[in-house]
């Protein structure tokens, strides 16, 4: 290869990259760096910024709303992620029982995933109407007196979690279904020859073979759950009190209702920090728990 030809290749490469790179530097990479800078400033957009050092981060410590938002987000995540996984896996296993019209059921079950969160959040408010709403009517058939879901201190968050599981289980289901269909039939036959029960086959063949898909869905679901916003804004607006105020909702309020941009930026970096730590922990666990063939 002559240097001249190489040169032409370099010019071509930059011409291909530039449209993306310019936009990326201005609108994605630049703002990431700027978030770090803004978190060190006192800034409310209307006055000129002053340097605050680490004071925005120090403010988080004694801020009760921040801690309750963090607690609410953790509560949401640690309940909604396992539930979503369970529903996704159960439905993937069900659809994988050799059914003929599997694609039709798969599409219909994926439908909630392809709806607008804001729009379906309204339906769920309606489903949760305390007196005579659909959810409480059904509970009534079983002799259970349902609570006033969305205005109850105890039940508002579980109500949001149920809606979120419904909205998102389709994603995991499709991933798991593809994973199940990729498991070689011979492995099950070998297990049967060895005298495995159905449960043992599930435990010793399905789970390890599916573990990369399980891992992927857990990681993406936790990241997604930490960013929950839309349904909490529409269905409870963070209430009652601040029982369902999530981290992202608090960032939104701090930045766009109190115009405390520096503090909001600091909060967003802390959110990012949590996501990094949790994801890193999962990748460490992955080495022990996830089975990769090849």
């Amino acid at each position, binding site marked *: 290869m002559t240097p001249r030809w190489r040169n032409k290749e370099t010019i071509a490469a930059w011409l291909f990259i530039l449209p993306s790179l310019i936009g990326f530097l201005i609108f994605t990479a630049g703002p990431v760096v700027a978030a770090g800078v803004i978190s060190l400033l006192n800034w409310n957009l209307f006055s000129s910024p002053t340097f605050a050092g680490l004071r925005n981060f120090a403010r988080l410590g004694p801020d009760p709303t921040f801690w309750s938002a963090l607690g609410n987000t953790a509560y949401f995540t640690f309940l909604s992620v396992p539930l979503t996984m369970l529903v996704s896996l159960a439905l993937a296993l069900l659809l994988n029982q050799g059914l003929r019209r599997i694609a039709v059921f798969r599409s219909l079950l994926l439908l909630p995933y*392809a709806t607008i969160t804001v729009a379906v959040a309204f339906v769920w408010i309606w489903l949760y109407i305390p007196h005579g709403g659909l959810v409480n009517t059904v509970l009534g058939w079983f002799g259970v007196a349902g609570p006033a879901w969305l205005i109850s201190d105890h039940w508002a968050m579980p109500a949001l979690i149920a809606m979120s599981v419904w909205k998102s289980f389709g994603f995991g289901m499709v991933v798991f279904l593809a994973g199940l269909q990729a498991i070689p039939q011979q492995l099950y036959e070998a297990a049967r020859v060895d005298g495995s029960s159905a449960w043992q086959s599930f435990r010793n063949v399905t789970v390890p073979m599916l573990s990369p898909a399980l891992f992927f869905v857990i990681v993406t679901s936790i990241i997604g759950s930490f960013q929950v916003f839309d349904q909490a804004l529409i269905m409870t607006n963070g209430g009652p009190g601040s029982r369902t105020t999530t981290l992202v909702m608090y960032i939104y309020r701090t930045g766009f209702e109190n115009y405390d941009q520096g503090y909001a930026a600091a909060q967003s970096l802390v959110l990012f920090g949590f996501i990094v730590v949790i994801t890193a922990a999962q990748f460490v666990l992955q080495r022990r728990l996830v089975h990769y063939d090849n």
Partner: protein
Amino acid sequence: MTTEALPLLKNPVATRRLVVFACFLVTAMTLVPVVMMVLVAFQSDAESMAAQPSFWPSSWHPENLQRAFELVPLGHYLLNTIIFAAGTTLLETVTAALAAYAFARLNFPGRGWLFGIYLATLMIPSQVTLIPQFILVAKLQGIDTWPGMILPHAFTAIGVFLLRQFFLGIPRDYEEAARLDGANRWQAFIRVIVPLAVPAIATLAVFKFIGQWNNLLWPLVISNSDSTRTAAVGLQVFQDINGTQWNLLLMAATITTVPLIVLFFLTQRWFIKGITMSGLGGR
């Protein structure tokens, strides 16, 4: 290949019936909220606001469709949603495909670290860039304008990353044959790579489009009038104006959801491929 992952009963016929029944049952339960949304949308005002909610409409009111459009400019909001979603999708797929080709196929100094910068932003949640992007757009007088709405969401790293992975899987021979026939890099990209990458590009486009149709936070902070307000934000306004007049509220929700559901059924081949591709990427 279909495998019986977890045989339920000894008797295969009984198992089969049980499985079919369970499939119908869970599918029906899953669809209840969507079906209820449409049913309540056609109820009369009195019925939908009665102290005791009713499930099946006792009379049908198709005029609710028109009334929902009259209460707020829903048609305009839908058009705005299409401009917003299509604008970001088009810009992102085109620029990402170009850049991904260079990262996958061309040698140039700095390729490694430049791609590294793209990768480094992959995991950063959009809330981190929300405040700086808002300030940037505000300083550039871009609040409530289309460039302000679209540009900050059209250059994410995920598109470049996904398409580069796909391009790497295309055999080099195809392109080299075209190069020997005298095609330059650009022609090789347009005539060889792009046609082969249609499924990957379509998958990226469908995901981006549906994601942006759903985007609430960004339009919520950037659009402050009807000129750029999207349907997701418009629904929130609708709730403020309308209170809980359920039939019209859920009619508005139906109107904004139906186009997305239609799009989903039309593009589900790519949609499902996109989900499984991302899911099995970890293997």
